[in-house]
């Protein structure tokens, strides 16, 4: 028996403690899900492959099973980047005899172009195909297909530099010969009527570049933008539609006279990354020029990312996001992210770097050094775009005219960059909460004063359950009333409604004065504390008068139509689902909470204080205002805080009664999007443990923290108040 008792005791202790702790563990879980956002990128060496001399190009397949390097011999050397062994050589038969002088690859590394010492250029398709074995192992095999050999210039000059991009419908190659001329070679794949693919080739010289001044070349992935970096630090930008069209030259390296040493185009094709001889790294894209009165667009140094200790030798952009890898003169390799201008990690230099490759899935880096080694690093960097600045600060996104705070988590294309700024949502949350409290606090507080100090106990028994039912109404119902019933009706009666709100207190005050004039025969029937029965019809009367007078007012003040006037005279847009609607609905949800706690606090003020005050000759109002209210002050404060906590986290009402657009505008006639509604809208679509998912957990954590702090503070204040008057 005793044993059973002990066991049961332990069971309850253990179980109870576990439940309490598990409940608190929610916070921990939410934090843990959000935490990886802020973990630094991780890099680790995997293997080093030796014997790769004079490397001009490196590439690797999607799974990082098989890599290749191109040296000066006309062959592709395949090697195993994990085992660190060379696998085989794929000889380039049609280029036999010549030596390779330049090479470039597409971002997925599966198409490349090579140039030789005798001016020949050839495109090569490398098909990587993973093979799954019986025992679950995976190996990757490469299959090569050589394209047509083309010649540029007179055939005597060697190819000095290449840039390349390939699309489904063809490719664009940018080639510089040893005399400094630059050629654009295009291949267009056309499908004939019978469904046959025909490849058409064209080559033309890029005019306007003085011989031997170009120091770097780049082509965007779409092949529509061409960039030529020059000796004096300038970058020429061209657009390529049918013909190359010169756009402008901008000073890519801002220090004059310093050459451009590396160029790359980030994903999306609009931002060019410029590396300079002085180690400067900057991202440029076309944007509205603030200096130009017409707002013309020109290239702007949007992202000044870093200044490396020595010249930028190589750049490799990611094919996944706006990250890229750089190598400097000392051989140090760094990982950067364009949009938030962060350098995520750095590897100390160990011998000069000849070539860089960023794995197609952005999960690894290959570095070829002067000493003939290819080093393979694994990379874990799932959320490069997140930084405190990205979450809260202003960021200049591609396609925007200025740095801004934007929330836009999903877009139409793969190249879309998620914009995860929480400030518009925080703003929306605070805006909604403030309007709700603006509406709720006066009503709840005044009502609580009346209910606790003056209300007749019999009416109290009727009104209390009414307020309790008000608290029990599901928020989805309030949202429905607000969004489907109130919003479309309010649209036409805005002035009348505002007028009604003004008339309500006027009518109440007026009624009290009229009451004095009434003969005592009538007024005696309503003893103190029963005024509220008379006031309900008066409230209806006030609302009705406001609505009746509203159209007159609208005609007199707002030229007949308020919304038109608002838009015309003040340029304020009127949204159907706006803050008046939200304020009302959320206020409705908050009033019972504030009311109940306020009333408890006011009722808890010891009767002795009240009696004392009345005995001293104070009127009941003076007692309420000057004795009871200050005494219950902290309780009232805590009530408002708990109301705040409830309004901050309210989801359904906001979801239904606002337009859910993440804009930052204090206007009461606009909507907003709050943190909580944002979670509800976006989390079903967010990939598990992706960046959006974790950002939403982070915003959930912010909500949790806010409400928890506010509620705990309120609770502590309340308890202190209880202790203070507990001994009366």
């Amino acid at each position, binding site marked *: 028996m005793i044993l059973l008792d002990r066991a049961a005791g332990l069971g309850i202790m253990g179980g109870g403690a576990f439940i309490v702790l598990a409940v608190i563990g929610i916070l921990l879980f939410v934090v843990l899900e959000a935490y990886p956002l802020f973990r630094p990128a991780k890099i680790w060496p995997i293997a080093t492959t030796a014997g790769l001399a004079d490397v001009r190009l490196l590439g690797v397949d999607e799974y990082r099973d098989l890599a290749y390097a191109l040296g000066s011999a006309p062959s592709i050397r395949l090697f195993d980047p994990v085992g660190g062994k060379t696998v085989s050589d794929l000889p380039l038969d049609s280029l036999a005899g010549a030596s390779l002088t330049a090479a470039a690859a597409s971002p997925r590394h599966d198409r490349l172009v090579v140039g030789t010492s005798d001016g020949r250029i050839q495109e090569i398709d490398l098909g990587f195909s993973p093979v799954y074995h019986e025992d679950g192992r995976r190996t990757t095999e490469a299959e090569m297909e050589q394209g047509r050999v083309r010649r540029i210039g007179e055939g005597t000059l060697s190819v000095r530099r290449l840039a390349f991009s390939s699309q489904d419908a063809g490719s664009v190659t940018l080639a510089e010969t040893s005399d400094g001329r630059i050629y654009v070679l295009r291949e267009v794949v056309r499908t004939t009527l019978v469904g046959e693919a025909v490849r058409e080739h064209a080559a033309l010289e890029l005019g306007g570049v003085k011989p031997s001044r170009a120091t770097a070349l780049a082509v965007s992935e779409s092949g529509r933008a061409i960039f030529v970096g020059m000796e004096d630090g300038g970058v020429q930008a061209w657009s390529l539609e049918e013909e190359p069209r010169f756009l402008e030259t901008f000073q890519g390296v801002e220090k004059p006279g310093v050459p451009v040493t590396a160029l790359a185009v980030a994903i999306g094709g609009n931002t060019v990354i410029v590396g300079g001889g002085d180690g400067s790294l900057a991202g440029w894209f076309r944007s509205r020029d603030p200096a130009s009165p017409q707002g013309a667009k020109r290239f702007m140094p949007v992202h000044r990312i870093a200044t490396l200790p020595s010249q930028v030798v190589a750049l490799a952009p990611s094919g996944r996001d706006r990250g890229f890898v750089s190598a400097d003169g000392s051989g140090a390799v760094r990982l950067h992210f364009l949009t938030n201008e962060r350098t995520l990690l750095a590897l100390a230099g160990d011998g000069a770097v000849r070539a860089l490759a960023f794995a197609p899935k952005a999960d690894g880096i290959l570095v070829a050094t002067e000493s003939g080694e290819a080093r393979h690093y694994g990379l874990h960097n799932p959320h490069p775009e997140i930084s405190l600045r990205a979450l809260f600060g202003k960021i200049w996104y591609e396609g925007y005219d200025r740095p801004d705070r934007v929330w836009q988590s999903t877009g139409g294309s793969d190249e879309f960059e998620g914009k995860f700024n929480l400030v518009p949502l925080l703003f929306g949350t605070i805006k909604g909460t403030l309007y709700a409290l603006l509406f709720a606090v006066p009503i709840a507080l005044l009502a609580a004063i009346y209910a606790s100090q003056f209300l007749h106990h019999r009416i109290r028994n009727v009104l209390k359950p009414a307020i309790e039912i008000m608290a029990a*109404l599901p928020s989805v119902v309030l949202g429905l009333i607000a969004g489907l019933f109130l919003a479309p009706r309010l649209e036409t009666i805005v002035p009348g409604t505002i007028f009604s709100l003004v008339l309500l207190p006027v009518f109440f005050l007026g009624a009290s004065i009229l009451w004095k004039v009434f003969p005592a025969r009538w007024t005696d029937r309503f003893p103190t504390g029963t005024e509220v029965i008379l006031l309900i019809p008066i409230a209806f009367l006030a609302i009705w008068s406001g609505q009746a007078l509203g159209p007159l007012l609208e005609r007199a003040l707002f030229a007949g139509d308020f919304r038109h006037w608002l838009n015309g005279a003040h340029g304020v847009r009127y949204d159907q689902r706006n803050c008046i609607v939200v304020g009302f609905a959320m206020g409705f949800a908050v009033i019972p909470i504030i009311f109940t706690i306020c009333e408890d606090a006011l009722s808890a003020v010891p009767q002795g204080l009240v009696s004392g005050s009345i005995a001293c000759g104070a009127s009941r109002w003076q007692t309420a205002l000057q004795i009871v209210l200050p005494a219950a002050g902290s309780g009232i404060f805590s009530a408002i805080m708990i109301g705040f906590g409830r309004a901050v986290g309210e989801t359904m009402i906001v979801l239904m009664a606002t337009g859910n657009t993440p804009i930052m505008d204090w206007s009461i006639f606009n909507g907003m999007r709050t943190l909580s509604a944002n979670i509800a809208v976006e989390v079903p679509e967010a990939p598990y443990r992706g960046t959006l998912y974790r950002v939403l957990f982070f915003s959930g954590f912010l909500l949790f923290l806010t409400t928890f702090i506010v509620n705990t503070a309120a609770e502590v204040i309340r308890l202190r108040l209880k202790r203070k008057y507990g001994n009366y």
Partner: protein
Amino acid sequence: MRRLATRPREIEATRRPLVGSVWVQLVRRGDPFVWLTGGALACAAVMVLGVLAIIASSGIGAMWPRPLTRIVTKDGSAYLGQIIAREEIPSYAEGAGGHRILMRIGNRDLYGVDFKWFDEADLDSRSRPVDAIVMERLEWGHFYGTVEAVRFPGGEATGDAAWPRLRREIRESRRRSTEIRRMESREVGRTNAEIEKTRLAIRRIELSGEAATPQGKASIEGLRERSAEAVRRFEALRPRLEGLRAADAEYRVIVRSARGETREYPISHIVRAFRPNEAGFLGLVGVYLSRVGEFLSADPRESNTEGGIFPAIFGTVLMTLLMTIAVVPLGVLAALYLREYAKQGTVISILRIAVNNLAGVPSIVFGLFGLGFFAYAVGGSIDHVLFPERLPSPTFGGGGLLWASLTLALLTVPVVIVATEEALAAVPRGIREGSIACGASKFQTITRIVVPSAAPGIMTGAILAMARGAGEVAPLMITGVVKLAPKLPLDGQFPFLHLERKFMHLGFHIYDVGFQSPNVEAAKPMVYAATLLLIAIVVLLNLAAILIRNRLREKYRTGAFG
């Protein structure tokens, strides 16, 4: 008291005799301000009354059949429909100063839209033809028009005979189609379940790596045979079903729209037909009751804008029950620990504050937790261990009934803890001491004496938790509620209660139909009716809790030992 003594200004102010002008008296006595505070309370009361009145009137009236009005516009086109709203034309629009009416003109297959605005100034005539019928159909919404003829095997009814015949045939047809549907759903459901089961069993054998062994081959062969057998059984039934359907299709009705087009529809597509202008009050009540019946018991159709909401009611009730089953033991255990076993001190006060404040943590955060922890983390692991053959489509690894219920249980556990703690505290000390004095152990005292005495309080907590849970939507919409669930979570297929299934919920239904529906105007009656139902459930639960609480107070007020 100290406060009074140190603030002589106040006393000064109050001691002065109430003289001076009426205004000064008024302000000093403060009656207007008292009235103002009373006004605030009146406003709150008006708001509650207003919201309840709006929902009650819109909800109760939603199903009431409105009369059909035939209008002819000045350019000669005629429409038949129900007038939904009338409003003044805004001043900036054409025809300002006049009124316009919104009509539900139905016949979506003919007109493309259900609703149309008409300026009253453009109308030539209005009438209420007695022979106008409303035909509620399985697809394309309502049809408004007149009956021309009814065709049935071996005959045709035209003229005055058409309408009574149509009514009879609809009744017959409803009976037939119920039978067909029952047969279909039973047989098709059984066949599909069988095929799916064998497919999964085969997949399981393949995954276990035994597919190549002779034993594995044999069992796969057997399973394939079973699947084929199920299909054959179903095929054998098909001619009968098709025969029934073909016979059903021979009953047709020919109707004419207000514009004069005639259309022929199979009677099996008609849910209900009536003549609102002729029916009289009792007839309309009949239609109303029949609609309410359908609303409560039928599945939704026309992307949730018509039909019933039975699956949503069912889902709400089942989810709330599961939640209660989870939350009551949890809450009671935690409260027993906090109140009876834990040593009262700072740690416990902090824990208590933390638990209390969990009630104030936004429900969407609980939803996030439910999705991330229950569905993705726990559910994902369950899938990997128990249902590898179904991957990559999740079984427990996505939102579902179980996870939604558990999430809501976490959300409502503070309610139960607080209520139970209060109830435990209210159990008089004398009873406990009596029990201990009789030689009972602490555990015996708690299980036999304390918990039974606190039972009404615990029940209050449970009911309050149910009320909160039934009305909560935000966490559910990310942990398993869907707009249309193909199957109920409780059915005749083993294991009968499908905890992993997604389900429908009243609250989410309101949000989805009212705000995400392609045809919000047509869905409004459904939305308001569903709202009324939800409020009725929540308010009833709350009233029950209040009643129990009050009775409990009475009991202890009189029964306390001193």
